[in-house]
């Protein structure tokens, strides 16, 4: 059993941070939760997608006449005939980054790209029909690695993008040259960071149902129903309000499900054409080869420090493998550069990022959003610098770490930061371990993460988060949110905030989410934004409803105006005289009568203002990972770990523990297991036999020391949790290897053969030394 310790807890709340079970739990464990995968509509057809076998080719001709002759095949759509090459992308403000035709008209750019979609009365027939579609291609030269794609004579993947450079990003503060001058020691390294599959339990799937009145309803597995509604409206030329997205239960997202995918797009286009519901479910293989992945990166970083370990300057250059399309890759490119500075104070810092198109599976956001790559490089280099200078790696980090009030010039101001206590906790834990066996070592790694993004490249006119709280006459509460539950527990967290604020019990609150017809717009579940942003909106809505109830209570109470009323545990009372009060339901009933029979409705919203460039708040953490290595085979085993973690005030600690354990498993996978090898643009392990994901029974211990701080911008002081912990682990494993053998591995995931090679080189060097 993993250990969960709380350092300096706050005063107890009534609901927040109490033992609240996931409010969706019963529906899920009894199988009643209806996922998109389960949806079946009358007259529904099944769609399948024919995909490109080439990494780069012109589409010359598509002949699907034979497929249409198969009994049961109802229709076919192609880019040329049906979708007319409409380009889409999530960076709506920047048209040149909307570069993806989900059914391309004239050219394919990666293996697995959709080319033709077909609908039939059964899934079997639809799949069979694919064999009867002839596509004539002219194969073009392809390029797979960013360092090759930027060469002058490399094949052009998108017209007009010189050297295949898709996006560049620059971050700079301070006088970098001058700050390097002040440094006594400068170190530079090149690193390589791998990709990673999101690996959602529920693969991409959609059921689209277009009716002759011009309305389109889509059941879809995604992280942001509002984004889907808006993006589909864009590509179909419809009004947002004529499209309804239903995503009540979603089997995981991890950053891979807030862009349009082939399932939603093709099912909708087929449904519009055939006027019947169409369902498309990706196979696991399709989910691997034809969605998007964590961004692989080549990282150069140069760091200057003083003899005493004070950080002076850092300069980084990054080339990312963007794959065939932009997706969320432009944001990942910015964030990796920003988080590469974390969690330290730099007098001067410069970052240049280049996102390069290649003929491979596109890369995009994935849990950690560029930061796992940033930390893999930064936290290892910092460890090596401490060793080069003979300094204590924890103390050197501590000395340079952010603190409350730290200003990152032009980027952010840190309002809450518990990292100093994280250092204390990790140090204590390492000391408590004493002497380790000779094949074991502990590595550490620090990081921080954002609590939702400030940027509005989506160009929404709506508040970033909105919520509506409705109080019924019996005291039950309807909470309508646009925030999206994807398994991370946001419905529970928001119900807790609502109950705490309104003064009711969590079982009084029913959360309605995942349906654009009945819930307000919200940017959805990505960038760790919902606890802070949707949480603030829910808190505001509940306060609004509460104020209306208390107005009636005040009017009735006859209390002197200096007294305040409050509601706790369904009890409306004077704060100074808690025993003087009245039952919540009775008050609500009268209040509703006073409103001429209308239910009490509170509204809340949140959009960050004047909070810098990135995020309103930042979490902090330090992780220690103990590994065991078989020196003869190179096999790594994770034996133990502790993460000291500052997410402000935890709202839902059971959810928090689940999120941190899940993030640790994903982070460990990124560190040493989840490799994605490509050969000539083809992914070589698109299945769960060959792609290595930690299974529940093999999950390494993931202990947590929760350092409670108070974040002024967050609801009840809360900030990010659950995504940031994907960041430190790869570097912590690398640092443990450095401690154990003195070897420096510069590529992740770390493979057994890399360890053996490094050990061999080390032995050879030692031999030469003698």
């Amino acid at each position: 059993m993993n250990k969960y310790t709380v350092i300096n807890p706050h005063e107890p709340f009534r609901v927040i941070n109490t033992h609240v079970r996931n409010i969706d739990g019963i529906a899920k464990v009894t199988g009643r939760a209806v996922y998109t995968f389960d949806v079946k509509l009358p007259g529904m057809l099944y769609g399948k997608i024919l995909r490109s076998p080439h990494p780069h080719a012109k589409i010359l001709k598509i002949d699907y006449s034979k497929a249409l002759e198969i009994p049961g095949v109802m229709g076919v759509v192609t880019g040329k005939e049906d979708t007319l090459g409409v380009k889409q992308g999530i960076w709506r403000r920047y048209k040149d980054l909307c570069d993806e035709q989900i059914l391309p008209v004239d050219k394919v750019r990666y293996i697995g790209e959709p080319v033709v979609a077909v609908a039939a009365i059964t899934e079997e027939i639809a799949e069979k029909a694919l064999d009867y579609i002839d596509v004539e291609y002219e194969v073009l030269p392809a390029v797979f690695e960013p360092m090759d794609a930027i060469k002058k004579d490399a094949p052009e993947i998108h017209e007009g993008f010189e050297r295949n450079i898709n996006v560049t990003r620059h971050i700079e503060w301070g006088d970098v040259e001058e700050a390097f001058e002040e440094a006594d020691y400068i170190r530079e390294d090149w690193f390589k960071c791998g990709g990673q599959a999101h690996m959602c339990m529920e693969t991409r799937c959609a059921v689209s149902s277009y009716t002759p009145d011009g309305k389109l309803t889509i059941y879809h597995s995604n992280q942001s129903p509002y984004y889907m509604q808006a993006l589909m409206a864009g590509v179909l030329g419809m009004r947002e309000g004529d499209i309804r997205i239903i995503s009540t239960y979603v089997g995981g997202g991890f950053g891979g499900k807030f862009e349009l995918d082939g399932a939603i797009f093709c099912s909708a286009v087929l449904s519009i054409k055939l006027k019947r519901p169409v369902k498309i479910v990706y196979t696991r293989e399709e989910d691997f080869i034809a969605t998007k992945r964590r961004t692989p990166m080549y990282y150069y970083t140069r760091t200057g420090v003083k003899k005493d370990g004070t950080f002076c300057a850092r300069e980084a250059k990054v080339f990312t493998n963007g794959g065939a399309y932009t997706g969320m890759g432009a944001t990942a490119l910015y964030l990796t550069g920003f988080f590469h500075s974390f969690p330290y104070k730099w007098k001067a810092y410069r970052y240049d990022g280049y996102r390069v198109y290649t003929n491979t599976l596109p890369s995009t956001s994935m849990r950690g959003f560029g930061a796992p790559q940033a930390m893999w490089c930064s936290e290892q280099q910092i460890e090596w610098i401490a060793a080069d200078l003979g300094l204590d790696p924890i103390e050197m980090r501590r000395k340079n770490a952010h603190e409350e009030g730290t200003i990152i010039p032009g980027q952010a101001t840190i309002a809450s930061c518990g990292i100093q206590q994280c250092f204390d906790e990790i140090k204590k834990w390492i000391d408590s371990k004493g002497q380790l066996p000779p094949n074991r070592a502990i590595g550490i790694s620090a990081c921080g993460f954002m609590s939702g993004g400030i940027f509005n490249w989506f160009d929404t006119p709506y508040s970033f988060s909105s919520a509506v709280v409705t109080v019924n006459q019996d005291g039950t509460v309807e909470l309508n949110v646009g925030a999206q539950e994807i398994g991370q527990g946001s419905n529970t967290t928001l119900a807790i905030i609502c109950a705490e604020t309104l003064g009711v019990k969590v079982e009084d609150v029913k959360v309605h989410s995942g349906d654009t017809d009945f819930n307000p717009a919200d940017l959805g579940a990505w960038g760790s934004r919902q606890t802070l942003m949707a949480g603030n909106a829910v808190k505001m809505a509940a306060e609004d409803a509460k104020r209306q109830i208390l107005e009636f209570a005040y009017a009735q109470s006859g209390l002197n105006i200096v007294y305040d009323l409050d509601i706790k545990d369904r009890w409306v009372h004077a704060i100074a005289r808690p025993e003087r009060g009245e039952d919540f339901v009775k008050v609500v009933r009268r209040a509703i009568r006073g409103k001429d029979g209308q239910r009490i409705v509170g509204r809340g919203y949140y959009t960050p203002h004047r909070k810098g460039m990135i995020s309103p708040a930042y979490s902090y953490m330090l992780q220690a990972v103990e590994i065991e290595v078989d020196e003869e085979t190179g096999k790594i085993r994770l034996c133990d770990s502790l993460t000291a973690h500052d997410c402000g005030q935890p709202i839902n600690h059971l959810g928090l523990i689940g999120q941190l354990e899940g993030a640790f498993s994903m982070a460990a996978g990124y560190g040493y297991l989840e490799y994605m090898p490509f050969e000539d643009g083809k992914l070589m392990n698109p299945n769960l036999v060959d792609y290595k994901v930690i299974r529940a029974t093999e999950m390494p211990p993931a202990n947590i020391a929760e350092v409670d701080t108070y974040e002024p911008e967050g609801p009840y002081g809360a900030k990010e949790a659950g995504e940031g912990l994907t960041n430190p682990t790869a570097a912590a494993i690398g640092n443990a290897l450095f401690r154990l053998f003195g070897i420096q591995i510069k590529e992740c995931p770390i493979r057994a053969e890399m360890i053996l090679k490094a050990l061999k080189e080390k032995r050879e060097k030692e031999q030469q030394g003698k």
Partner: protein
Amino acid sequence: MIHDFTYLKPGSLKEALAMYAEHDDCKVICGGQSLLIVMRQGMISPEYVLDIKHIKELDYIKFDPKDGLRIGATTTHREIEKSDVIKKNYPVLVEMERKLASVQVRNWGTIGGNLAHADSAGDPAPVLIALDAEITVGNKDGQRTMPLEDFFVDYFETVLQKGEIVLEVHVPAPAARSAAAYQKFNLLESDMGIVASAASVTLDENGACKDVRIVLGNAGPTPRRVKRAEELLKGKTYDEALFAEAGKIASEDCEPVSDIHASEEHRRHVLGVLTKRMLKKAWEQARG
């Protein structure tokens, strides 16, 4: 996706063999933990699938101190793992089963199905060959028995003829002063082995090696003995340098492939390391 097929469910072994003889393009399913994966990936799409998993006649574990161990083909991995008599007499089989995939797979997958699938990375075969096991196969006309190492022909190919299924595995009674050990190299404990090595050692009264068998897993198309290393060890006494030498031979006398999980060089290296370790482990256990 899995293509439509006709599902055949015989009531008895006799009926199963008759049905199998009658139907062309028919695959036997006995747990399906391997078959369904290849069917799902579209690598095979048989017209008929003959299910023998429920046939009780082949679901048994019998042990006799003289005759040894007999395991029926439809016995699940989990039954082997949980068998007291196997744990007592062939602990290496229990150790091997514990790391064969997940509990869910072991609950459903069977020993007969595993061997007939003939995946070179399968766990049971190297261990059983190290224990000098025989396999009995049969069709509607009769049955035949052969050393298990002769059962495998190539990647996913066995000597099974049309209409023939695996009936039983027989392991001789353990000799005095003998022990066996098995280890696979993988990244996650429950994964298939990237490579594996099994060794069984029998010592004489003086502690010298009377008999030894070394079998490599996923080191070529079929599980393979390392006879050159076995010869080296016979008659010798405990010597770690000798185990290292045997390991070196193992890394030479094999034909592993390079793939995304490991290069050929790494596979050879690890086969050497595992063989050295398994010899030492088995030898020390045999010594008591």
